[in-house]
């Protein structure tokens, strides 16, 4: 018996000391996780529909993505996410088989294979200065290889062969003040026309031979009024430009190399004059001008005469013109009317000829139409049909065809800025949502199938059946709360100011809402906070979130608060707060009787405002008035300031929710040697299970757990740049731990010869940060653990018994903390984009670091690998405790990539949230893609896993019962025969 006990204990020890890495079987993909692929807000779109076969549209987006989409279903055929500094300026199709992208301000030209997205060639173009870039790809339908791709950027005009990317010739236009505005390459012509402005007052016109790059002719003519920069090219020999006063349209015609100007007053075209603006759509022989919020179409006659032909309301988006049959050119315009949008396609030459007029019911939560791209196709009756790709204000992408939305993509989700979690509604009594799905036989059958699967006895059909069963099972996409807390909502705020609620079960959008504001048309979203989470009182209230937005991009522009009901997605209220928003501080533990959380918002003047503006909240706040501290970081100046509350401004202004603050402390980093690159605090809602850490030799370490710790990393100003721009001697990285109440620097650690970027994570009493070591030329990860020295004497049991301990002594941030730190560094073989840590409901489960690598994968690394107590040869006792022998670099176990064989392209952030089940945590990663999974850092020790085989248990029980009966029968028989003997 003792032996068995010992064996059992040994087994337990073995199980607990084994390193549990996240691991997944291939057939478990999609059971707990989901992955959504996006591209971002579309900037340019080029249709490719000429050939039979797959119809596709090539798009480039603001997230620096170039992608090929299926025109029928909107799926992604292929996509490439370029680097963050590699913004795409233009995209086109050359030779009918290559996608040409121009990026990096016109200095990088790439060709991708149209069917599969393979890079074909890449050319770096010379650039000397910053300028707008232009891409001109010859539109030759006959695949004539003689015409080069013309690229203007960085002061140079390059002619590039579309076949192999070879630069055929380049022309220097870097002369001072010269700006190339248009590059025209007429069909069937070997002459390239280049038009530019010299000092914005002289039009210069070049004719360049497209084969050799020689200037054939050069003409210039001064324009006394000066140009304002915007230009609209209406035909092959005319452009229209605004003069510097923006009240005169100037037609520049360059027929036969002669430049002539023709001025037309805008006031002569339309009655209401004002500052005019030339709109971007390229229409032939016509231009669109925006005057006084109206869009006016101006036709350009043969002699350069201008006449206004039509005008439209402001809420109109237009496409470029598109050649349709018989030398006609058409364009599309889209405008709103109530909940409908009207798509109209007209001929440019004859605005009364409407080729298409469609009205489409549109979701109000998409805002207005931002961009339109049209494409035509020949219907079976030989008439022209049109499809329109429209980009809405919330960044979503829709394809309209034949009066219906063929497909839509929620591209707003590619630019998530902030994420929070919310609970789903509780299942109401009496209303059973769960359906009775199985009879016992079905249930048993299902489990036997699962058993077969887990024993690898299943046939391929069985495998399919199992997978299907798993996907459908357990009601994972129900819209109610579950016992384990696996079903939740992730609320995501996007850059377009749209709020999405995503279900953790299958990732579908439960609701979405576009923020509105009374003050401005579309506020931009900044951050999200949990506003009301009823769990004790106010149970009838739905939980809600606070969205902080801003009218305008400047930090001093007025803020907007919006409160959104989490269950329904309805905006409860929205208020224009009339002051700027610099910092939003949710006050921990302070809630009013409605369970609304108190928030402080700091403005640019250093005053703070209390929300919600109720007398009750004010009462709560005033009680704790003296204990409220806050800090701000001025990264550019290298100053961290701590503030305390001073007084209410009730006397000065009528607003009694408005407080002044006083500066308590400042930490100034010398600007010549240190520059702040990263600051970080603990998550305010983090749960710490135990303060004490018992080591093997019965020693107790007390964690120094404080909510007021700030981690700051600084580097030498020279080392703030990229890797490779600095030598090891010139750069040093220093990290500090600062108490934000007193401003005391509790600990600092300097790393010579190291530089940023620093990615850090702060949890409980430890900080883990990732940086670059220039000496070893490798990335490093350092862990710092902070322990409380003042309680170290409490180890003595007698002291505890006699009550001589200081455990009940109040902890004050004012007293000088006695603390000590332990730290250790390791090499890490990858660049990192972001680091997060798992969080569980009670904080008992061991933690894992979630490292978002530059390869857009997420690695789960057990915290035990970054434990400063690791030694080269741990003793037996330490091994039993789970201390891993020290290695110089952290291991990358491929099975512990939680994203398995997926990538979260453009990864920007990882959010973790606890489930109700202690062992489990939700992980949500966002970037261009979204990814969600559920993690159990120490395996699901508190529940049976999904693939627990009940069938095996049943079979065992049946076998045991059978065995009992058989043996009973046998023994009866034996007894009988013995009695006969």
């Amino acid at each position, binding site marked *: 018996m003792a032996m068995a006990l010992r064996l059992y204990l040994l087994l337990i020890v073995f199980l607990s000391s084994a390193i549990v890495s996240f691991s997944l079987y291939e057939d478990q993909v999609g059971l707990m996780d989901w992955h959504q692929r996006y591209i971002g807000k579309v900037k340019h779109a080029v249709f490719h529909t000429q050939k039979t076969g797959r119809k596709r549209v090539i798009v480039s987006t603001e997230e620096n993505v170039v992608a090929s989409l299926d025109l029928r279903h909107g799926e992604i055929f292929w996509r490439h996410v370029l680097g963050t500094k*590699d913004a795409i300026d233009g995209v086109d199709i050359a030779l009918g088989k290559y996608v040409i992208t121009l990026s990096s301000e016109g200095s990088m030209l790439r060709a991708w294979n149209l069917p599969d997205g393979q890079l074909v060639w890449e050319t*770096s173009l010379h650039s000397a200065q910053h300028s707008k870039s232009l891409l001109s790809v010859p539109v030759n339908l006959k695949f004539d290889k003689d015409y080069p791709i013309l690229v203007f950027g960085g002061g140079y005009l390059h002619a590039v062969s579309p076949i192999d990317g070879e630069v055929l010739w380049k022309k220097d236009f870097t002369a001072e003040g010269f700006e190339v505005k248009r590059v025209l390459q007429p069909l069937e012509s070997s002459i390239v026309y280049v038009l530019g402005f010299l000092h914005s007052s002289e039009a210069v016109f070049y004719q360049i031979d497209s084969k050799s790059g020689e200037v054939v002719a050069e003409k210039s003519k001064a324009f006394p009024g000066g140009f304002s920069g915007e230009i609209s090219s209406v035909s092959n020999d005319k452009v229209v430009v605004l003069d510097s006063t923006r009240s005169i349209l100037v037609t520049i015609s360059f027929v036969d190399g002669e430049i002539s100007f023709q001025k037309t007053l805008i006031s002569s075209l339309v009655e209401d004059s004002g500052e005019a603006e030339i709109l971007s759509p390229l229409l032939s022989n016509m231009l669109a001008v925006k005057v006084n919020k109206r869009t006016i179409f101006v036709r350009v006659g043969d002699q350069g005469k201008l006449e206004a032909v039509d005008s439209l309301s402001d809420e109109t988006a237009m496409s470029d013109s598109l050649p349709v049959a018989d030398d006609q050119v058409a364009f599309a315009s889209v405008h709103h009317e109530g909940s409908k949008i009207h798509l109209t396609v007209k001929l440019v030459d004859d605005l009364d000829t409407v080729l298409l007029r469609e009205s489409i019911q549109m979701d109000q939560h998409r805002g207005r139409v931002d961009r339109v791209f049209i494409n035509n196709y020949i219907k079976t009756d030989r008439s022209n049909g049109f499809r329109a790709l429209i980009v809405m204000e919330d960044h979503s992408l829709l394809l309209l065809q034949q009066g219906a939305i063929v497909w839509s993509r929620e591209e707003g989700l590619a630019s998530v800025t902030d994420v929070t979690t919310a609970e789903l509604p509780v299942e109401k009594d009496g209303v059973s949502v769960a359906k009775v799905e199985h009879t016992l036989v079905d249930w048993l059958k299902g489990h036997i199938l699962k058993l077969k699967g887990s024993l690898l006895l299943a046939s391929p059909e069985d495998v399919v059946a199992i997978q299907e069963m798993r996907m459908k099972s357990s009601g994972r996409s129900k819209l109610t709360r579950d016992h384990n807390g696996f079903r939740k909502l992730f609320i995501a705020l996007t850059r377009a100011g749209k709020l999405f609620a995503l279900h953790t079960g299958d990732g579908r959008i439960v609701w979405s809402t576009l923020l509105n504001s009374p003050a401005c048309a579309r506020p931009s979203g900044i951050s999200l906070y949990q506003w009301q989470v009823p769990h004790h009182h106010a149970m009838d209230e739905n939980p809600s979130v606070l969205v902080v937005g801003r009218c305008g991009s400047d930090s001093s522009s007025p803020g907007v608060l919006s409160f959104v009901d989490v269950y329904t997605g309805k905006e409860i209220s929205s208020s224009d707060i009339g002051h700027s928003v610099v910092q939003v501080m949710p006050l921990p533990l302070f809630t009013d009787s409605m369970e609304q959380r108190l928030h402080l918002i700091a403005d640019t003047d250093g005053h703070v405002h209390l929300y919600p503006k109720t007398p009750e909240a004010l009462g709560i706040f005033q009680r704790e008035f003296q204990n409220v501290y806050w800090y701000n970081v001025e990264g550019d100046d290298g100053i961290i300031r701590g503030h305390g509350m001073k007084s209410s401004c009730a006397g000065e202004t009528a607003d009694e929710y408005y407080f002044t603050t006083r500066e308590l402390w400042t930490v100034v980093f010398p600007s010549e040697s240190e520059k702040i690159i990263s600051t970080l605090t603990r998550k305010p809602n983090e749960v710490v299970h135990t303060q004490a850490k018992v080591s093997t030799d019965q020693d107790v370490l007390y964690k120094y757990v404080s909510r007021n710790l700030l981690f700051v990393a600084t580097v030498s100003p020279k080392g703030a740049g990229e890797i490779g*721009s600095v030598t090891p001697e010139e750069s040093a990285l220093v990290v500090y731990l600062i108490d934000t109440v007193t401003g005391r620097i509790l600990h600092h650690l300097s790393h010579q010869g190291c530089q940023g970027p620093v990615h850090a994570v702060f949890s409980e009493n430890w900080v883990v940060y990732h940086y670059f070591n220039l000496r070893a030329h490798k990335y490093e990860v350092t862990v710092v653990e902070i322990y409380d020295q003042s309680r170290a004497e409490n180890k003595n049991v007698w002291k505890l018994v006699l009550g001589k301990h200081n455990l009940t002594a109040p902890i004050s941030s004012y007293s000088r903390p006695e603390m000590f730190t332990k730290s250790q560094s390791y090499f890490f*073989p990858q660049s990192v984009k972001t680091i997060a840590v798992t969080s569980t409901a009670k904080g008992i489960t061991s933690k894992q670091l979630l490292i978002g690598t*530059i390869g857009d994968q997420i690695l789960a690394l057990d915290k035990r690998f970054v434990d400063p107590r690791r030694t080269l040869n741990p003793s037996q006792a330490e091994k039993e405790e789970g201390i891993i022998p020290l290695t110089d670099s952290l291991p990358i176990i491929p099975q512990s990539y939680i994203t398995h064989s997926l990538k979260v392209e453009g990864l920007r952030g990882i959010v973790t949230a606890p489930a109700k089940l202690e062992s489990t945590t939700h992980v949500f990663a966002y970037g261009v893609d979204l990814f969600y999974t559920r993690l159990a850092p120490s395996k699901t020790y508190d529940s049976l896993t999904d693939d627990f085989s009940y069938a095996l248990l049943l079979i065992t029980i049946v076998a045991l019962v059978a065995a009992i009966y058989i*043996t009973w029968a046998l023994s009866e028989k034996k007894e009988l025969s013995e009695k006969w003997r």
Partner: protein
Amino acid sequence: MAPILRSTPLVALLVLQISLLFFASTLPISSGSEDSYTITGRVRIPAIILAGTAIGHAAKFSNIKVVLNGGQNISFLRPDGYFTFHKVPAGTHLIEVYALGFFFSPVRVDVSARHHGKVQATLTETRRSLTELVLEPLRADQYYELREPFNVMAILKSPMGLMVGFMVVVVFLMPKLMENIDPEEMKRTQEELRNQGVPSLSSLLPASR
């Protein structure tokens, strides 16, 4: 005379130092155009590593990215596996290759200004220096656990298997063990135990008296 002679190299050194200082201060300014070089390399996945992977599609070059200095520049591979970084200043750089299904060591690349952009490369993981910039994965990554095939031992080792095994032992082997003991000896030991006064369960119960 001698002191003057001795001082001339000193002066020369001083002049050199000043000029070096001057150059050092001007270098970052001029690096925009003259001091930028091109790094060209190649990614190759040997057939041995490729054979060991389950993810065949990952081997396609269109999904591989080459990253310079932790994201400063991202380059893609051409069909022949070549990649290029343009406009790289002289200095020590880091190149990483990201391909799903493979693990590449980061490469330390020294671009020499003196030798007009001559490139020296070292794998930082293995400290092996490369004669030419051909990057090969260190290993193929397997992201999934492999299901073990049907195995009798695995079933027996599972808790339920152990339970069944234990029962079998009790049912079949215990009677055998009991048989081997002599009944008289058994009785003797039982009596001995009783005499020792070990409080057995039966003796505690009043009904057994």
